[in-house]
């Protein structure tokens, strides 16, 4: 039996239970008990039905380990008369006192247990750190590498699919439009297209250009080689070379697959967003998204600039006066305030004209070959005066 004086050497820290005791005759959930630490050992006080029962355990009888779900309990084990007893301590103050008071024989196993607990904590934090690191890298990779991913994805889509995609949208769009099916305007556009397309090496596309009656000064391209030119553009162009410039630009939207890039980017966002939000119906909306994408098909500024430069080179190769394209942008810039409708994603026309002028200056002198049609007659066939106001 251990003398009672042990307990008197340290102040009584608390009177409510501060540990759980497990043993064969105890309930499996453990019995709350009050542990007090003295200079020679522990005193464990159990209270049941108002009766206090206590057990004194010398430090020498204890074996020490770490337990609990997160290795955050100090586990003390000793053999008692009723069999093996386990004490689970979590109270930080109690554990500190134990560490301070425990004799050297207990000190070493205590420090070993503490290092097990620390190691478990570090490993847990380390796993989280690695997980967050991977997540961050993934997000950063997607953020910075999304263009590359889009380019890779676009590259894998066969031209045949692109044609089918484009054609479906093209037919639907044209069904609601008033088309110019024949006449000088159509043959002029066909001649321009033929001269430009002839200059494209290894052309996988069969370009189809349609003239649509509309006052809108614009033209647009759909994936797969489908191009629409509005009569408004032709009525406002002072010469055929200006229209050819716009055509060259649109042809390069097709060749560089800008439409597909936009679709893949948009789809990527929708898919990513629906995964993040967990909205299964997001996928159902994808097909709708397709049609919306086609109708409102707009390119970003970088794509516009690339199409401008490549279009200029195409004009040059086709021996069509590239100044027409530049002049057209200059005239557009004079109207940037709004009379001519031009999509907002297009770079400001003045900047475009300047960039093209600089590009052209670096190219050798060109002797243009004129078109076979009379532009004034084409304009007249569309109901515009023979010459556009400058």
């Amino acid at each position, binding site marked *: 039996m251990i003398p009672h004086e042990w307990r008197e050497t340290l102040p009584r820290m608390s009177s*409510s239970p501060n540990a759980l005791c*497990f043993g064969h005759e105890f*309930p*499996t959930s*453990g019995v709350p008990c009050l542990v007090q630490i003295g200079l020679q050992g522990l005193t464990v006080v159990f209270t049941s039905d108002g009766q206090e029962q206590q057990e004194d355990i010398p430090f020498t009888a204890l074996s020490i380990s770490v*337990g609990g779900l997160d290795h955050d309990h100090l586990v003390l084990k000793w053999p008692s008369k009723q069999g093996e007893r386990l004490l689970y301590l979590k109270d930080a103050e109690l554990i500190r006192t134990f560490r301070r008071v425990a004799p050297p024989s207990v000190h070493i196993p205590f420090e070993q247990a503490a290092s097990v607990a620390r190691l478990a904590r570090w490993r847990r934090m380390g*796993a*989280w750190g690695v*997980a967050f690191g991977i997540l961050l890298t993934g997000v950063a990779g997607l953020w910075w590498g999304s263009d590359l991913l889009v380019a890779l994805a676009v590259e894998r889509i066969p031209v045949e699919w692109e044609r089918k995609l484009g054609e479906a949208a093209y037919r639907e769009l044209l069904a609601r439009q008033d088309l110019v099916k024949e006449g000088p305007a159509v043959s002029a556009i066909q001649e321009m297209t033929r001269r430009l397309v002839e200059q494209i090496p290894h052309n996988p596309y069969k370009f189809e250009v349609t003239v649509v009656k509309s006052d809108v000064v614009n033209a647009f391209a759909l994936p797969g080689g489908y191009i629409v030119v509005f009569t408004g553009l032709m009525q406002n162009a002072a010469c055929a070379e200006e229209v050819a410039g716009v055509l060259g630009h649109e042809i390069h939207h097709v060749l560089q697959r800008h439409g597909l890039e936009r679709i893949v980017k948009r789809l990527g966002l929708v898919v990513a967003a629906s995964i993040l939000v967990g909205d299964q119906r997001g996928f159902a909306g994808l097909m709708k998204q397709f049609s919306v994408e086609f109708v409102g098909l707009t390119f970003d500024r970088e794509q516009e600039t690339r199409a401008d430069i490549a279009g200029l080179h195409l004009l040059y190769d086709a021996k069509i006066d590239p100044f027409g394209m530049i002049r057209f942008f200059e005239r557009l810039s004079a109207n940037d305030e709004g009379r001519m409708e031009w999509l907002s994603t297009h770079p400001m026309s003045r900047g475009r004209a300047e960039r093209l002028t600089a590009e052209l200056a670096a190219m050798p002198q060109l002797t243009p070959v004129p078109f076979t049609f009379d532009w004034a007659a084409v304009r007249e066939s569309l109901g515009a005066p023979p010459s556009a106001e400058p």
Partner: protein
Amino acid sequence: MRSEILYPGAFPLVKIELSAGEQIKAESGAMVGASPTIDVESKMEGGFLGALSRKLLTGEKFFFQTLRASRGPGEVLLAPTVPGEIVILELDGVTEYMVQKDGFLAGADSVRIESKMQSFARGLIGGEGFFILKIGGKGPLIINSFGAIHRIDLKPDQEYIVDNSHMVAWSATTSYTIERASSGWVASFTSGEGFVCRFRGPGVVYIQSRNPGGFGAWIRQFIPVSE
């Protein structure tokens, strides 16, 4: 507070009698009925950030409701959302329970609730998400399950294996590791178990007799798909 489980089984109610001035906390939306002396307040347990982290991390409700017998003694009826049993645990101030996020129904005001980050592996494949509730303090804690609640008693170093989606609550003195159900990867998944948790005593583990995720997957096949 004095609590009693009415209609034990799949669709139980808890009746809690409060003396004047006494209050309890409950999952928001858990109240079914109450005496006119009871006031219902919503409270962000653990302050705004605590509530926010609980909401974002464990998916638990942002607000708990506080039911206070402010105008004299009265009673409150509480019920969980899902069909299943209710168990009342008496917390002694020392014992702590880990409770998966849907397991908490109500508790005495002196019951302490915090959300706790699990280890990465447990969070990823343990089936209760990355964060669980750690509930300690003193007084009655009322937990609910999907299906019946089964109690497993573990002596020191005794082990027991539980399917990861059937866990409800377990005492903090138990520890568990996650492992494959069978020795091979293919067998683990073709056996339909995938991962299991190997619990090790001492302590108590409460499991639920039905798997909410499995039930959801089963019922989904009967739901007509719109669009």
